[in-house]
């Protein structure tokens, strides 16, 4: 097992999270089964106290897991130096059979952890705690996604073989590769970029119609598509302008120092924008989320587009 200080920190934190999450799971099952806000019985008063404890545990686990995703990428990036052939986090992700699944699950969990935090926030700000049962039911589901994530993370770090030759990102993210990510290159990058901008404009137009209740579902759907297309366009088009290399498509290298860690800002903006965009469907008073989503997604677009424009201004050609 690879035991760099960062990996060790992640594993210890995961172990602590797991212990607390088990406590929260036991309480969540009890709350889900017996919760009755109108009851004045001893059981209900106890559950109200326990719900506060369980919600606090869950809140802190999730609030820590969100920034830890960036730390996870940072760790992958750092240990890539120890793997022969790996140039960045992409090589580490690709080094085992579990890396890609773990990565996708982590992204899914980020969104679902965030959604739980928002539901919790709405719940505790209403006198009758209207979403308590639902939020703990959601946690029972989330516990298993968290558990799978922790198991996958442990397995991935445990199965990294330092003597094995791994692929570098140039190979993984290339049109010549046969991996699932290379399927992005079967689409014309101009088409992907056009869809990317159309989706951003669509979101902004939809915000003007937010008084229609059902439009929120369309807004969320557009945000899910925007996320997928944003990642695709980042790999196939915008990334090349960040690297100023027409053949380099890696979505990880720009997280490194050479690129001023700009990847962290890029991904934070994209995650925040699409997260708030998806959230409008689960929140009743959602005007704030429409606004936040539009702001973050626009900032993301401005940031990645600025690389293209600056490159053209500097060099007078497109890649």
């Amino acid at each position, binding site marked *: 097992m690879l035991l760099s200080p960062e990996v060790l920190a992640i594993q210890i934190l995961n172990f602590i999270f797991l212990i607390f999450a088990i406590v929260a799971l036991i309480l969540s099952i009890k709350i889900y089964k017996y919760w009755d806000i109108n009851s*004045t019985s*001893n059981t209900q*008063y106890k559950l*109200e*106290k326990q719900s*506060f404890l369980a919600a606090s545990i869950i809140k802190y686990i999730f609030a820590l897991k969100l920034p830890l995703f960036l730390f996870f990428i940072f760790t992958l990036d750092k240990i890539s130096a120890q793997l022969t052939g790996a140039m960045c986090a992409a090589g580490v992700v690709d080094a085992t059979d579990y890396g890609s699944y773990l990565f996708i699950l982590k992204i899914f969990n980020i969104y679902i952890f965030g959604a739980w935090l928002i539901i919790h926030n709405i719940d*505790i700000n209403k*006198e009758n*705690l209207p979403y308590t049962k639902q939020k703990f039911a959601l946690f029972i589901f989330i516990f298993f996604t968290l558990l799978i994530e922790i198991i996958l993370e442990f397995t991935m770090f445990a199965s990294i073989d330092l003597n094995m030759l791994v692929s570098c990102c140039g190979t993984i993210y290339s049109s010549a590769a046969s991996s699932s990510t290379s399927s992005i290159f079967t689409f014309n990058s101009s088409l992907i970029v056009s869809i990317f901008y159309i989706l951003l404009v669509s979101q902004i137009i939809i915000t003007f119609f937010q008084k229609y209740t059902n439009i929120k579902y369309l807004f969320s759907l557009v945000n899910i598509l925007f996320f997928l297309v944003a990642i695709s366009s980042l790999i196939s088009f915008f990334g090349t302008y960040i690297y100023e290399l027409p053949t380099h498509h890696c979505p990880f290298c720009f997280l490194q120092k050479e690129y001023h860690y700009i990847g962290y800002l890029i991904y934070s903006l994209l995650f925040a924008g699409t997260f708030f965009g998806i959230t409008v469907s689960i929140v009743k008073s959602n005007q704030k989320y429409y606004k936040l989503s539009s702001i973050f997604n626009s900032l993301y677009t401005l940031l990645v587009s600025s690389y293209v424009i600056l490159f053209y201004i500097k060099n007078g050609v497109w890649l």
Partner: protein
Amino acid sequence: MIELKNITKIYEANKHNKVTALDNINLKFNEGELIVLKGSSGSGKSTILSLIAALSKPTSGEVIVDDKRISKLPDNFASLYRREHIGFIFQKYNLIPTLSVKENILLPLIPNNPDENECDFKLKTVLDKFNISHKKDSIVKNLSGGEQQRVAISRALINDPKIIIADEPTANLDEKLSLDFCDILKNLKTQNKTIIVATHDPIFFDLEFVDKIIEIKNGTII
């Protein structure tokens, strides 16, 4: 109106150490009434006060104040309820000894972030009412017991609460100051405040303006 319905309160230090402070009690107080809760130490008087003030929750049963089930309120809403509706006068005053009279009295207003004029107006009103204007800038620990209590009353009233709760308010006062305190209560009653006093001081039992005297023994009403 304040209603306590089937209230039981058990303090549980551990599984083998349980104290039943209140045992299935029912009480109803009307607006503007002055109620005295009488009983020896440990009878459950203070527990009733803390339940009405939403400082603690019952083990079972409910507390309803003006149709609001306050025993079911989450902590953040319970704090809001206390801030808006309850003025609490403690036996030992619970003032902050190193702050001035003015600062102690204005404390309950801080969460509302009021403007300076509003603060000054409210402060002047209570200081004048309780005759402590001249001590406005004195540090609380340098005041006499009677003065400290008037500061505590001023602090309890600065938010103009509808319900005033006093827990053994005369325990640290001599007879003259206790009678002064009774005069203050009489005056507050004329302002239609609901006042609940928990005490074992006999001075309260013969007051003509007291509406109800409720005796509590071992967590039950006699």
